[in-house]
């Protein structure tokens, strides 16, 4: 074979292989990026950060009227249970406000969002900036062929066929973004976890990174500018832990409250009137994440706030 022929063969076969692979991915369109289709139910199989970021391009804005943003504390709220509204849970495990802002921008820009629910916890604003390269506009093209995509296919195969159900259960993150991470966690004893924190006099950090605080303020202002109702809630902290850290936590709350105006709705789920729930160990799965009971409590409060402030599309006010 001579060099010219070799080059021609290399070019044709390489380009064809790449073209076939890209076309396959384009038609499979696992993140709903390339084909307009309102009826699809897209789930997340692995790499929550990249997956939810990519879903924020079309799937979420095309199919949902509201979103929840926050870290893991709100990621396991099953918004599918609120029938009156279509809410996508765009919370991401371990995310800060800088990372969530990428999703918010995409969804607001491309959709017709009516409300955004913000889970307020010190974790959201303890630092700023991207924690990894997993949320990056370049990932858009990665959906046409990348190692992340191959890994996602592999996890789709494993989860949907229940090949390793104990380690990688099916439906871990549903089509509403609800991350049922309780399935993958080892069973913890929340009573022990919470009391251990109390015994250690462990004061949960309430540090607020000034840049993150500014970013949260800017995000809220951006939502207001786009006539999107902002609903924020202070995620319930076990009362036993809060009791040894009240002063710091209230200072944190006051700092956060300065970011909101009368237009916004802010729920304090650590208010004393909820003490019976927040002091009940069954509300949690560890020292802070919510159990099913805890989730019901938060979702119930959110639903109530929504019904009072945002008219459901399929219900008239008089029918509520």
């Amino acid at each position: 074979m001579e060099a010219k022929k070799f080059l021609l063969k290399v070019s044709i076969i390489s380009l064809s292989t790449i073209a076939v692979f890209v076309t396959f991915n384009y038609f499979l369109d696992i993140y709903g990026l390339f084909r307009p289709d309102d009826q699809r139910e897209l789930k997340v199989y692995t790499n929550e950060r990249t997956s939810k970021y990519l879903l924020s391009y079309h799937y979420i804005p095309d199919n949902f009227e509201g979103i929840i943003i926050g870290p893991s504390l709100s990621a396991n709220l099953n918004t599918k249970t609120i029938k009156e509204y279509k809410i996508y849970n765009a919370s991401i495990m371990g995310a800060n406000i800088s990372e969530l802002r990428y999703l918010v921008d995409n969804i607001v820009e491309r959709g017709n969002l009516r409300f955004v629910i913000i889970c307020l916890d010190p974790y959201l604003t303890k630092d700023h900036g991207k924690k990894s390269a997993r949320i990056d506009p370049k990932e858009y093209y990665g959906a046409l062929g990348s190692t992340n995509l191959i890994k996602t296919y592999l996890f789709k195969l494993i989860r949907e066929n229940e090949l390793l159900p104990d380690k990688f259960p099916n439906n871990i993150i549903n089509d509403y973004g609800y991350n049922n991470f309780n399935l993958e966690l080892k069973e913890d004893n929340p009573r022990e976890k919470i009391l251990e924190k109390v015994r250690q006099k462990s004061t949960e950090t309430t540090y607020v990174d000034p840049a993150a605080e500014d970013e949260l303020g800017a995000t809220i202002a951006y939502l207001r500018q786009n006539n999107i109702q902002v609903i924020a809630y202070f995620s319930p902290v076990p009362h036993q832990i809060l009791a040894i850290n009240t002063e710091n936590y209230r200072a944190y709350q006051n700092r956060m409250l300065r970011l909101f105006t009368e237009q916004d709705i802010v729920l304090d789920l650590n208010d004393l009137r909820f003490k019976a729930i927040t002091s009940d160990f069954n509300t949690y799965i560890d020292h802070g994440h919510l159990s099913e009971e805890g989730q019901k409590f938060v979702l119930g409060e959110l639903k109530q706030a929504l019904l009072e402030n945002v008219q459901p599309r399929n219900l008239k006010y008089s029918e509520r």
Partner: protein
Amino acid sequence: MLFNSPEFLFCFLPIVLIGYFSLNHFNQIDLAKGWLFLASLFFYSWWNPMYLPIILGSMLFNFFVGKALNKQKDSNSKRWILIAGITFNLSLLIFFKYTDFLIENINSLTAGHISLLHITLPLAISFFTFQQIAYLVDSYQGLTGTYNFFNYGLFVAFFPQLIAGPIVHHSEMMPQFYTEENKNFSYENFVKGLYVFFMGLGKKIIIADTFAIFANHGYGNTASLTMLDGWITSLSYAGQLYFDFSGYTDMAIGAALMFNIKIPINFNSPYKALSIQDFWRRWHITLSRFLRDYIYIPLGGNRNGEFKTLSNLMITFIIGGIWHGAGWTFVFWGFLHGAGLIIHRLWQKTGLKMPNIIALILTFNFVNVAWVFFRATTWTDAINVLSAMFGIGKVWDLQVTVLIDIYAIPMALCGIVLLFYKNTNQLLQEFSFNTKHLASAISLITLGMLFINSTTANDFLYFDF
């Protein structure tokens, strides 16, 4: 612009290639060289156009000093011109690279509070300074020809080797730009260049960036490393550095070959070395050559007795250490290698022989331990990693915490296997236009594309030096 970025692969490289060979095709030879020179400057200024006047100023200065050296007949005047030229180059390098380091040390010694200048290091300054010092010394010795500025500029700035070497010698580059047959597009060179380029790309984005995950995590958390962690961390960095730098060199060699220019090899399976001397004949070969020809030999080399030879070796390697970075850990790394070479030289004199496998293991481990000082940003980090590796002050713990991405482990294992496989130079020599190499080229290209589309392009490690 990074070799592993889409803008380089899909825009810059094809446009420059088409422009260069089209101009040559229409017999516009000077224009073609000018085009390549301007493209190289564009490539350089892509990072930061602010650096452009520095490299241009340095090239203009050295070009005229070189001309003056060629013209001057009086040996005393020639000597002073050379001293002035070298002083200028070293001052430029010292100012940009070592000012803050010097201030820090003055502050430490005098308990002073001189403010640091926080000078940004212009990209590739260490490389183009060394390259031009060599040119001046050769001009002084009457070994250079009369070149015009575009030709000289192209020798310094030719984009494949500009940023991180290989440190090329004018005698191996200049004639190639004049050779008639190099002006025509060669399918053979293009294919070979493409093959080597994608081999280098694979080394960088598949292997080196995988090792980097573990190395970065380990060096970011040195205080909590277990013994196994310590070894995985240091070995990962050894793997990362080799695949990163040799990957870059392969890409440089491949890209240059597409222009019919052969630049020298820089690596020859260094981790297969059987002694430290052997290691430096295989690792960053063009730097070793520079240090030998322009530092070790001018210092006297091995011509003035054993003690002087050993001290020349030590001085050369300490300079080599500080060339890599402004920090005492780099100086110590250079000192370790100098000491290693001295011990090797003394060992050789005993006439004793060591089995190859033991020599290989000993050499590799010495190099690996020395890399810890090369990579660690502080003495504390270096000591922490070494303490973990050798179980000093640690509870015997086999727990592993640095393997943070289990999906990267198979790629790292492939990297380890590749260390003992044929190197790029051997593979290039074996290359022929047959089905086996067709399959391998297609695999390299498709895999390379997949990985390019998967990651945000990471800088090459040697850009920092």
